[in-house]
């Protein structure tokens, strides 16, 4: 699949995106803060929401250096 296909794919995905860029950035910052309590993150976090055949799918991608030690209270 060539460049024409890739462009079309991106257009269709963007049309289906249910979040505007600004709101997405807010959620990304929030998630990054929350996840940092459990993981040592390296690099930024990326959020992707794609509406597909059976509703929306949410994908969170971020690089993790290590899992932090945390205690679970009984």
């Amino acid at each position, binding site marked *: *699949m*060539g460049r*024409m*296909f890739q*462009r*079309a*794919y991106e*257009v*269709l995905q963007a*049309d*289906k995106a249910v979040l505007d860029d600004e709101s997405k950035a807010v959620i990304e910052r929030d998630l990054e803060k929350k996840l940092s309590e459990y993981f040592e993150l390296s690099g930024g976090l990326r959020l992707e929401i794609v*509406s597909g*055949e059976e509703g929306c799918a949410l994908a969170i991608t971020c690089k993790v250096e290590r899992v932090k030690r945390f205690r679970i209270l009984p």
Partner: protein
Amino acid sequence: MARKIVITSGKGGVGKSTMTALIGIALAKKGERVALVDADFGLNNLDLYLGLEGCDGYAIPDVLAGKCRVRQALLRHPKYPTLWLLKGDKDSFPINAQTLKGLIMQMEGEFDYLLIDSPAGVGEGFLAAVSAADEGVVVVAPQLSSVRDADKAIQRMKGLGIHTLSLLINGSHGDLVVEGEEFSPKEIAKLLKLPVLGVVPHIYGLSCEGELTPHIAVRYAAEILRGGKRRVYDPTKRYSGFWGSIRRGLKRSL
């Protein structure tokens, strides 16, 4: 009980009405009882493509106004005795989903196929046409704008509970596909995530023809629709290989 199939596209002018007429003819030639419903009020062209434009008779608004019964408004094709047309109207006519659905239901016992020609767009007329159907054929041209609009129409249809959907790719140029300058049917299917019912090539001079006769590509599509042999026309075939490259060269130089 008839299968109720809406022919739609999102984008205008990509060949919905032409394909509705041609598939209808192809099915009727196989002996199926087919009614074509022109749900594009104001921009009705189905009568034209069937060569029935001169035939007077009742149209959908007359049925809805109680001037006649559905049966009286059905126009039989003189050449294909199992093919019927329920005319739309030359004036735009507001119709809601429930009304059209009721009208279509009155016909379903008499036919094997009801093909509903939808107007372009995803507005009221589209919603009415889609609501009256159980299945959808999405006509899509191999251009980004058409693929994009088809995608929107598909999402709307799925939202309305129509999940039996397939693509009829219309106006494909085999030579351009081979050269990578036009979407291939495979790419379109992958983008829209639907099976391909058929691939119809761009037919030079189609719009000038007096009477439409179904191209082999349409006959294949009609056969798949009937649950018969699964064959999809390949417009790239004559442009592949040694002789194909010569044909492409000749076409380019024209």
